[in-house]
């Protein structure tokens, strides 16, 4: 699929990185599906966002470095943006989850008090 022939020093680590990334993301996805409660489920997707994305980006850099046709700045920026933005998401989500849990339980207890 790729335009030119890739040298070995790209193919081997690149392939390994991609496989690793795939596995990490997949495991993250499975974790999202499998883990029992919301707060626990917050964690696995980070695997994809951090190391998974990192592996792909490094692989991508390798390829572009090999083919010398594309700047690597995109990968850097992508990494930067992902790192800067994920905490925002996580903070708001977990707070929303906590708040909703608290509201739910207080409502439940209110219902128990006055059936």
């Amino acid at each position, binding site marked *: 699929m790729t335009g030119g022939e890739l040298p070995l020093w790209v193919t081997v680590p690149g392939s390994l990185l991609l496989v690793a990334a795939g596995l990490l993301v997949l495991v993250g996805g499975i974790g999202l599906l499998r883990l029992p409660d919301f707060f626990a489920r917050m964690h696995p997707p980070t695997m994809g966002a951090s190391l998974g994305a990192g592996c792909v980006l490094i692989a991508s850099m390798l390829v572009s470095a090999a083919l010398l046709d594309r700047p690597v700045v995109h990968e850097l*920026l992508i990494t*930067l*943006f992902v790192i*800067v933005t994920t*905490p*925002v998401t996580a903070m*708001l989500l977990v*707070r929303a989850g906590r*708040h909703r849990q608290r*509201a739910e339980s207080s409502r439940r207890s209110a219902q128990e008090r006055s059936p």
Partner: protein
Amino acid sequence: MLLALIVLLPFAGSVLAALLPKHARNVAAAFAGTVALACAVLVAIQYPQVTGGGVVRSYLPWLPDLGLNLYLRMDGFAWLFAMLVTLIGALVVFYARYYMSVKDPVARFFSFLLAFMGAMLGIVLSGNLIQLVVFWELTSLTSFVLIAYWYHLDEARRGARMALVVTIGGGFVLLLGVLMLGAMVGSYDIEVVLASADAIRGHPWYAPMLVLIIVGALTKSAQFPFHFWLPRAMAAPTPVSAYLHSATMVKAGVFLLARLWPALAGTELWFWLVCGAGSLTLLGGAFNATYQRDIKGVLAYSTISHLGLITMLLGMNSRLALVAAIFHMLNHATFKASLFMAAGIVQHETGTRDLSRLCGLRRAMPLTATVATVAAAAMAGVPLLNGFLSKEMFFAEAIATGDFTGLDFSLPAIATLGSVFSVAYSVRFVHQVFFGAPCGTLPRPPHEPLAGMLLPSALLVLACVLVGILPSLTFGPFLETAALSILGEGMPAYRLAVWHGVTIPLLMSFIALTGGLLFYFWQYRSGRAMARPPLLWRLESQRLFDVASVRVTRGAGRLVEYLFTSRLQPQLLMIVCLALLAGFFTLQRGGWLRGFMPLTPIDPLFALLWVAGGACAIGAAVQAKYHRLAAVIMVGAVGLATCLTFAWFAAPDLALTQLTVEVVTVVLFLLGLRWLPRFREWDDPQRKTLRARARRARDAVLAVAAGIGVSALAYAALTRPATSHLSEFFVENALAEGGGRNIVNVILVDFRGFDTFGEIAVVGTVAIIVFAMLRRFRPAPESMVRPRVQEEEDAAREAVIDDFEDWLPAGYLKIPAVLVRLLLPMAGLVSLYFLFRGHNAPGGGFVGGLVMATALIVQYMVGGTIWVESRIRLLPQHWIGAGLLAAAASGLLAWLAAEPFLASQEVDLGGLHLSTVLLFDAGVYVVVVGAVVLMLIALAHQSLRSPRKRVEPVERRASLRRAPVPEEAG
């Protein structure tokens, strides 16, 4: 030319009269009278040219392709009618001068009267049937405004409307008939029509055409069953009744029947229709006239009856009867106009028209009594008066018509019976008004009117007498000229004379006179009030018409609730159904589904992607009602799947755009959700009903059908080879001519930049609409309160009060704010990057603008509206204007190089390639930033309406002054 003058003069007079001072009675009357007389003179001097079958023509081709030409034509018959119209018109104007009150706005009155005269002359002189219909409708309209002249009177308004509806309706029917006639003959020219009599009668359309034309004529002449409007038209001022509703306009119907007589008459159908309607009207009208309480009511029904008589004559298919009909038209016009004027005098001088209140006026108004008595005698058919002569002819024709069938007997019987009633109401009219003891209590003490008021009536009566005694010396020649012009060579021999010897018609006249007298005095003696006709009194036409009118309106209203339902769902349903039908009908030919291209192998990843996307779409469809947030999330996922699809099939620009739009859309939806009511499945009683289920099932079927249709069409197109010379051109010229490597962008900003121009106009327009609406937005009361979750959360902690002067939010948004603000300059950089390099790589003004807008919106999300806006002032609507102007400027720059709008111009500055295309894209960028920010922020501003636990800024500044930040004035 003179003919045109005859028709135009009254219209011109009408316009001038309207411009006269409102109450200038004398001036207006003198003016109108002069016009009428001038017309009369103009008509009169044509006489030598129309005798002996001569015709004066004035022809001006106008729309010859449509057979619509200005064609005036005067023959003997037309001349006679034109004289009638103009002379009686002059008399009526004279009379009206005295009749109308000083307070009446008479300028309008005379203006309308002249307009009517012109229209009537137009009918009479038309040589083209369409032109005739035009004037025909004009008489209906002028009649309407004249009847409603005293529009403050309820009965005037209602009567006028009924007359209008009936006569205009009749006019439409006539128009259809005339259209058919024209199509049959190939011309609307009356002479052509008259010349093709045999062709017409043999044409398959003859019967329907005849019915239509006759119906048209009958409505105008107030013939059964369309007679009912005429009595209600008596609410008009009496001069109007005298002129329009007895002498002229109502004669238009019979005029037309006579005019077309040679072409249309002579068939059984004609006889049955015309004679039938005429005889029923003759009888019914006369009977009703006998039992009216209102003087004008008597005269109105009498008019109906006499017009029935004329119609009967026309229907007899006899040439002599036609002559009699014409003769009676003249006679009736003279005596009836005179009677109306007399009735008007009575009303004018006594203040009432009620027969039961009037009596013995002969002493107070002897002259009037004499005039009225003679005129009534003429109406009754007393010998030595003109009415007698034509009635005699009518009797003779009634006897002569028909072979040895049942008609042999019935026509004379009807004629005689009608005349009996005619005598009865004539006697009643004279007897109850002028004879008997004078009665005491009248609204005004009666006295003789001014001489001028009586004069026109007296003149007409004089004519009755003269014609009655010396027919062949007075009307005789004119009648002959008129009849000759219609009948031509087939002119029958007849003799106008007072005495024909003792004949059956004379006997019938005698029976009628004595019978009528006996009948009246028998009724009178029996002490009946004779205020309403027996048997028929319940048929009060006005009430029936009003009820029918209301019923029609209401019925239409009920229908409209279905035909134009205000509900949205049926409308959308209709669109879906029609689209499905349209697709179905075109596609049912079959054989189109599979093209010749080999299929590309299925990539399981793509299939999986759309398993996910499809599931989300269905999920969103199911959840959209009760779980809106979930639905929004799913739609977001669908959007992402769509974006990936674009990416998959080599459309990076699309994917980028879709992605950025997706983000903004989700934020937009969420901003909106805040103001929607909470809606729970279990709150909805309608959900489980059978109706609801059936509706859902129906919609599901339609939706699936639509889906199948779209799928099939997409498949059909996808499996066909692509053959776009457009795209070939774009690909080949994008770099060479358009100067860009990103073909899509070159298309957007150059090849088809006009589309993009339009598109930003749409975006800008939407934004200003949204802005205008939200300025006046009023949230529902229950949405005004702060969201419940906020209350709960804030209650759980100490009340959060953020200070907009703080550098960072104090609460949970502190760290997100740091991070998001860190992103802002970089996001701005990325947005400009997309803008600048869009011509050569994916991106462009639109994507760049959306990125910038989103970066700004996120600042609002973490900082809050007030915080952000206390620091920057965006004025987004100005951005939209500026962006549009920039795009326009880039287009207009081409004009300087004498090239068409939007032709790109370029310049190179030290490796920096500048082009009007970039200016255009920058315009797009600015518009998008402005529009998106405007819409989202305007929505966000709505939350400021909620009452909020916030310390007033002024107080806070006093207590919490921390940084020396002076407030900017204004």
